[in-house]
Structure formats: C-alpha cells, structure tokens
C-alpha cells in the first residue's frame, strides 16, 4: 500500500514547474529569484539541481525507516503507512536532532522566527491521504516525476533500466539506501554528482536502537549489582561490630579499607 515517487532524471527538462507547484501547495513564496536557488531551505522544500545538461531533484526522501522519526524525542516526525514522513509542529520542541541525524540533510529550520518550526517536504501527505498524487507529480509536463505504489514503481524503474541500459546508471537510488526510501531516483550520471551519498542498505535507527535496547538490562542488573555490593559492604561492618572491637579491626574499619572477613 505504501506510495512512492519515482523521479527519472533522463526525462527531466529542468523546467522547475515542480518547484513552483510545491511552493503553491505549501503556501510558500515563489519567484525567479527563488527558482535560481539550487538548494532546499525552510521556504523551498524541493529544488531542481543542474549539472551541465543533466538535472536532479532534491526533496525529502521519505525513508522507509526514517532516521529523523527515530531520533525525535517527542515523536513529532512520523512515517505514515501511506508513505509520507509527516511532521507535527505542535509537538516539536526545537532540539534539531533530526537535522543532525538526517543522512540526506533534508530538515531545515526557521532560524529567524521566534516560534520556529522544522520544514521539509512531506510528500504532500494531505493530498496522498485524500487519494491524490503529489503536487510535483501532477504538474510535471514530461512525467519525470511519477507517483504510485512503491512496488510498482520499483518494477517500472527496473524495466526502464533493462530496456535502455546505456541510458541509465545501473542503480535505483532509494531502493536500498538506508533501508530504502519512498523517493526513488534514476539518473544518467552517477548520483554522487549531485551529492547523493553512497549509503549502504542498513537503516540507521538500528545503530542507536541496539544500544537503547540495553537500557532495561542496565536498570535491572545495575540495581541488583549495586544493591549486592552495598549488602556485602554493610555486612562487613555489622560483622566487625558484632565480633567486638579488636584494635586492629577497628582501625582498619575507620580507614574504610578492607575488613578482616573476606
């Protein structure tokens, strides 16, 4: 059921209609000056990057197991069953751990506001929930950005590469990167050209979860261990007191050193 986007850079003509549709959908300003900026920001959730005659889109990858959602201490970021990774501004306390953790550098912050929010593409979660496609897909004149079920889009991407192997880099970016993403990319040039990092297929949240999973052990074993040590040290004092104060024992006890009964 999970929905996704497939962006085929070889079909993109760099018209940036997706940028404008995104801005309109999210109530953000858009003019030629904004169009010129080849990076996302707190007021621009998607950007079309240009490298000689090739293009590439930058937007939230809406990861399958999102790092941002795993690190958020208040659960403001959430992976929905439909695919989009949503953000609840009413929960966010502004710790910005999501920005530090995101492997794609997606979340942006409203640094100059007094009540700042994290800003990012959320794959038009409201439209998707209403059964529509994303604004960027709807406007795209060449079909470079396509919306659909993730499994179907993966099949289609594979087909396109198989049919024209010379046209594409033999790689569907987002198929496996950091555990897979809901945005899939096809390109004629290596993805590194557009600063898409070369990630392995393991989802990052596991890295911290492995450690967090030990918290209950630390609490239980720690309590028992510390309580046990306390019991032994107390017992030594009691035994020493009971056996009567021989001068040597008393002196040792007061020093807090080892007592006689070990």
């Amino acid at each position, binding site marked *: 059921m999970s929905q996704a986007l497939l962006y085929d850079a070889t079909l993109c003509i760099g018209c940036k209609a997706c940028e404008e549709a995104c801005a309109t959908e999210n109530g953000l300003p858009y003019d030629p000056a904004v169009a010129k900026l080849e990076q996302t920001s707190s007021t621009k959730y998607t950007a079309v990057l240009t490298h000689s005659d090739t293009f590439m889109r930058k937007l939230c990858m809406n990861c399958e197991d999102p790092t941002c959602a795993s690190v958020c201490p208040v659960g403001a970021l959430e992976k929905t069953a439909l695919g989009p990774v949503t953000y609840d501004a009413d929960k*966010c*306390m502004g710790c*910005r751990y999501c920005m530090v953790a995101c492997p794609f550098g997606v979340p*942006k912050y409203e640094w100059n506001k007094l009540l700042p929010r994290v800003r990012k593409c959320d794959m038009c979660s409201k439209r998707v929930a209403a059964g529509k496609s994303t604004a960027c897909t709807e406007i795209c004149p060449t079909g470079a950005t396509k919306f659909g079920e993730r499994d179907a889009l993966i099949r289609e991407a594979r087909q396109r590469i198989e049919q024209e192997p010379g046209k594409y880099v033999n790689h569907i970016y987002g198929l496996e990167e950091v555990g897979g993403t809901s945005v899939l990319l096809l390109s004629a040039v290596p993805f590194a050209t557009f600063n898409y990092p070369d990630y392995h297929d393991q989802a990052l949240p596991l890295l911290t979860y492995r450690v967090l999973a030990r918290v209950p052990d630390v609490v239980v074993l720690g*309590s028992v261990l510390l309580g046990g040590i306390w019991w032994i*040290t107390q017992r030594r004092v009691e035994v020493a007191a009971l056996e009567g104060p021989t001068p040597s024992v008393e002196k040792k006890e007061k*020093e807090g050193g080892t007592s006689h009964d070990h």
Partner: protein
Amino acid sequence: MTIDWRRLRPGHVLTAAIFAAGLYATVLRFSGGLGASTNLSDQFPWGLWIGFDVLCGVMLAAGGFTLMAAVHIFNAKRFRPIVRPALLTAFLGYLLVVFALLFDLGRPDRIWHPLIMWNPRSVMFEVGWCVTLYTTVLALEFAPVVFERLRLERPQRWLHMVSLPLVILGVILSTLHQSSLGSLYLIVPDKLHPLWYSPFLPVFFFISALAVGMAMTIFESSMSARHLGHHLELPLLRDLGRILTVFLAVYAVLRVQDLYHRGAWPLALRWGYESALFWLEMGMGLALPLLLLFLPRVRQSANGLYLVSVLVVAGFMTNRLNVAVTGMEASAGVRYIPKWTEVAITLSIVAAGVWAFALATRHLRIFQEEPPEAVRPPLAAQAHAAD
C-alpha cells in the same frame, strides 16, 4: 585581608562584565531568535550550547554520582568529607544544563514535551528522561544539607530512609545518560569524523565521565582550598588521583585499540585541522596526565594533582567539543565558530555556577563532613600509610 580584597576586585568586575554581556545576549536570543543570536545554520544545527553547555556540563557534574557510589555503596567512608562539594557541583551542574537548554531549544516553552510525548526509540528521549529524573534525585540527595541548615529534622529522617535507593537510582541514571550523550552520535556514522565516530562512543563517554568526575573533585577541592580557605584533604586527593589513573589508563587502552581496529590511526598521523585537535585532546586529557601521574612527586603533591586535574578536565572538554563541533564540520561543509552571543551566554552560565557554588559554601555545611564521626585521626594515620 586587604590583599584578598584587592585580588577579588578584578574578578568582580570581570564577572559583572560577563553577566552584562550575557544579559544582552539573552535579550537578543529571545527577541531575535536563534538566527540572530547564534552562528548555527541548516548545515550546522548544533553548536557551542550543545557541545559545551550540555555535553561538557553533564560530564563535569559526574563527580556527584561517582563519590556517592564510592561512599554509600562501596563503603569508602574516607571520602565523606568531599561528598558534599561533589554533590553540590553535580546539582548545580544539572540545573545549569537544563537552564542552558532553554536557550538552545527552538521552543523552550516545550522543554517538558518528552515527558508526555514518548518516543522510546530516541536517544534524546532517554537523555531527557534521565536528566529530569537525575536532577530530581540530586535535589533529594542534596536536600538534607538544606534541611540541616533549616533544622527540619523530620523530612531529614524521611530522606534518610530512602537514601540507599536514591543513591542506586542516581548511579544507574547517570550511567545511562552519561553514556547516552555518546550514543546520540551513533546515528551519524557518515557525518562524524572517523577519529571520533566509533560504535563504542557510549563506553568512551561513560569512562571519561568517571575520570572527569575524579578530576573535577580534585579541582574543586583545590580551588576551594585556595580561594575559599577550606582545609585541603591531601590524602583524599591522592586516593582520587590513584582512581583517576586507573580510569584514564582504561580509557587510553580502549581508545587506542578502537582507533587501531577501525583503521583510523593513519588519519591521526595525517596533519590537518581534525588531527591537530585530536592530538590536543589526546595529549592534554590522556598522555600528559598519565605521564604526570606516574611520577610519585607529582601524584603526591597538592599542586601536581591540581595540575593533572586541570589537564584532564580541559582535555576531555576538548574531546566533547571535538565530537560535537570539530568532527562534524567536514561533512557539513562549513566551519562553525560561535557568535559572541553564544559565548557570552555560556560564560554567564559558568560564572553563575561558580557564584552559586561559593554562595552555597558560605551558607551551608558543604566542606564539613556529614556526621561528626571521627575521621580526622584515621585520616592522619592514613596519610602516613600513603607515604
């Protein structure tokens, strides 16, 4: 007396200047937002306030749980005279960490959100809970000192009944969040420089917190002896120095091994920005202190131990800043240098801590030992034994 008075004046002027700058910076922070008051950016979202105020602040407060454990669980009663200063440092430290967070959070009015909006998969969530609970534990552990002053005997008796569970809880909470501050960075394997990124970050953060806890106790005992005129418990400081040596040695071995197994040593040997700061951290916090502690003349003298403690504290502060700032710069593609406002607020918080510490020692029984059991005579005996 007159000499003391003259000596104190520049200090007062400096403190006043820091507080004035901090106050103005606070106005800028809360009238113009983070953008106007910091050099943070989308590329570099965490800076001095996280790297120093939070990471270093929590680390510097580690003397509280280590000494509480030593005295009340391991029954090392000889450390009693220095438990209270360590506890006071810890309590003030955590209060200031929480206070500093109010500056760094984009929505400080929502600092309580993690308590009701749960996400157990988040390290930050765990740190938030641990710091909240541990600050409460510290308040309860420190409360008897205040009750004693106010002659409130009944609450003192109540607290005494739960003192052991409180100590155990405090040690566990500290173990968890001291290490978790390192775990925060486990999620950025591709962003944090390999000289610092390691799967053992939580272990390193915890062991270094133990070491710094010892060093801070030596440091504040020495400082208090110098500036507040308290009796210096030299034999105790020597014992702390011995424990410090063990913690530092364990840390050094683990760190060296970890760098070796991850193949990161060549990076340390290649001259550059990161490796220079790496060697500063390793030299100041590990190599030099260990070398000095192996010299009997140094580890037995008050001045020697004081020097070692300063080096260890400074070295591991460099370590925390390297993890939070230096190691994150290359992947971010920007250099981060804190804005004056960030520095002013951080310095004000440090100054507030020092001032509160001095104030507390003047009005509460901090440097006196808890119950007046005989500790002095055996201590003197022990000093001879140590020599």
